[in-house]
């Protein structure tokens, strides 16, 4: 956008340098926030993970004791397993549902526009509110099932390990499918009409068009949405904390919850910081992996010429 071609009004080198400088200045606010709220705390957490601190008294340097305590604790592989399980399950639930909804909502019909507004509602609610509501609805003694006297609904939803995990995945999906549908809706609307017209001339039906045009064209949208699902579920905390508090036992204790419990309930800031760093590493590795998978080459677009 910045005119780079030499023209009659080309500014002098000095003026240009000044302009670049002023552009650089514009990044300062964002940079300050990133350093202040991202980099400095991260360094602080790294330092804390090599100390012993109860959150109240003095901080003592203690080498690798915190790391040793965390890495030898059987709670860590369990928390990692639960985290990845919730991640994988919520991806499996959210992605197909969001693609279908997104494709459906991309249509120009009026009723679809109305529906898309309705679908959007869960996104407007806070996670804590959603969790409290579901907790009340699923209460085995005072909840929906007991109230309507439907035996199928009055399970011990949050009291059995398998069911509780399922409920967490369901509620997470209920909350975030609208968001991902929105992303896919945008993706579908970008697909050029001419491709569908060409396919129709060749005699392709609805299903064939979906699998041969829509899905391949949504590849990059899918990668974006997948990255958000996977990295997002790593830091999932508020909803699970209110809904199950990690229970029953430790059946839904994800890594972020494990970190909180160690740090703020057991007063072990060292091990909690070590878990925080593990979270950061896993998150970075995941998004790196997804970028690789995506190829990241802009010239791969199948839209050219369309």
């Amino acid at each position, binding site marked *: *956008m*910045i*005119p780079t071609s030499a023209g009659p009004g080309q500014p002098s080198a000095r003026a240009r340098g000044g*302009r670049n400088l*002023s*552009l650089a200045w*514009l*990044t*300062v*606010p*964002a940079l300050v*926030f990133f350093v202040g*709220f991202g980099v400095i705390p991260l360094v602080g957490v790294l330092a804390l993970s090599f100390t012993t601190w*109860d*959150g*109240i*008294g*003095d901080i003592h340097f203690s080498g690798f004791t915190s790391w040793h305590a965390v890495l030898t604790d059987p709670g860590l592989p369990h928390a990692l397993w639960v985290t990845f399980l919730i991640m994988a399950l919520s991806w499996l639930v959210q992605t197909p549902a969001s693609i279908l909804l997104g494709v459906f909502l991309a249509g120009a019909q009026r009723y679809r526009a109305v529906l898309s507004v309705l679908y959007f509602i869960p996104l407007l609610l806070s996670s804590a509110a959603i969790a409290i509501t579901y*907790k009340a609805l*699923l*209460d*085995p*003694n*005072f909840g929906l099932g007991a109230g309507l006297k439907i035996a199928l609904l009055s399970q*011990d*939803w*949050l*009291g059995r*390990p398998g069911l*509780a995990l399922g409920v967490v995945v369901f509620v997470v999906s209920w909350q975030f499918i609208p968001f991902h549908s929105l992303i896919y809706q945008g993706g579908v609307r970008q697909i050029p009409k001419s491709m569908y017209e060409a396919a129709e001339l060749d005699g392709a039906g609805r299903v064939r068009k979906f699998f041969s045009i829509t899905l391949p064209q949504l590849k990059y949208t899918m990668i974006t949405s997948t990255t958000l699902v996977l990295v997002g579920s790593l830091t999932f905390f508020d909803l699970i904390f209110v809904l*199950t*508090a990690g*229970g*029953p*036992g*430790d*059946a839904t204790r994800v890594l972020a919850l494990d970190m909180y*419990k*160690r740090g*703020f*309930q*057991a*007063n*072990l800031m060292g091990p909690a910081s070590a878990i925080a760093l593990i979270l950061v590493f896993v998150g970075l590795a995941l998004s790196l992996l997804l970028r690789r998978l995506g190829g990241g080459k802009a010239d791969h677009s199948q839209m050219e010429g369309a």
Partner: protein
Amino acid sequence: MESRTTSRRTFLSLSMGLPLGAALAACGSSGPTKPGGGGGGGGAKATYWYLSTQPQEGIRTAAMERFNKANPNGQIAGTTFQNDAFKTKIKTAIGAGQAPTIIWGWGGGGLRSYVQAGQVEDLTSWFGQNAAVKDRLFPSSFGAATVDGKIYAMPCETVQPIVLYYNKKLFEQIGAQPPQSWGDIMDLVPKFNAKGIAPFSLGGQSRWTNMMWLEFLFDRIGGSEVFQAVFDGQKDAWSHPAAIDALTKMQALIKANGFIKGFSSITADSNADQALLYTGKAAMMLHGGWTYGSMSKDGGDFVSGGSLGYMNFPPVDGGKGDPSDTVGNPGQYMSISAKATPEQKEIAKKFFASLLSDEEIKAWVGAGSVPIVKGADSAFTSSKDAEWLKFVYGIASNAKTFAQSWDQALSPTAAEVLLDNIAKLFQLSISPQQFTTNMNAVIGK
């Protein structure tokens, strides 16, 4: 062109900056009232955080307002929190040097960690100068306020033993008598289950609710010395045969469906466990004395109509423990933050001396609680809850041992491991042997 590009970038950085700025501002205001920020206007202000459960909240607030009315130059600003949220919040605030002037708590292990960090004032000499303040309170209430021979907290409010509540109507319905022994409890379980009534209500997600069961079983089977050994940090103290026996009996009750369906997802903060008792869905409940007040308030005519029965936890056949022993909260506690200004500390001490006035005693008695003041039973006769109050006063004054709740007596680190393992024990996902192994690993930590 150029200016448009610039403005777009400005917009970008602004749009990134704005939410962050808003978040920043929110951070600043979420720490309710800043200690030390009292210079703003009027006299000096001390800050005070306390729990929000009714009816206790109203009595605390009234005591504070009375003090504020009497002392226009040195006032107290209060902020309330839910029980479980408060426990986390207060620790974080103290660690960050943002503690309120008056730190409300349960004494014991939590207080010890504040003392070790030098965050609370030593009140020993103040109590020495104000012997009258000390002498009118139950001597048993000072145990959990004392760390290494020095007093760091003002005992306040009420004595709260844990008692076994039952619904008299449901016992009539199945034609049974309240349990006189652990054997009776196990016999009652199938009888209630056969009628579709849960034998026991339990808010298991809160975890400390499960712990109360173990506190009594340990005591009744092996005597108070079993947990005392843990508290004193003796090696492998959890492996005591009485401990294994208690844990095994506990799991036997759970396996026999002794507790309400879904107990592990019920929280005590919502008072749903009490609702199960007074709505007739569960026959019995082991809970703190403070629930009497909330059941009278929320339970319609359940308490006033005489349907609520209560008793001390029954003995276990062949157990060594004294059946008069009890556990619970020997009192609540207020400490003064070491970080507070001298003026704030003075206000706090003045406030301490004003606590448990006749009006406040009357209010606590009215809410069905026994204040930790000697001779408080003289105020009972006029109360509609006289029978209950005498029962609690009797337990508190006759108990051979009034043990403090385990999670309050232990350090926060050991308490968290304890609660975690108790939740798993109740989930039947670990055996009594695994429980003792896990717990032995954190003894003395």
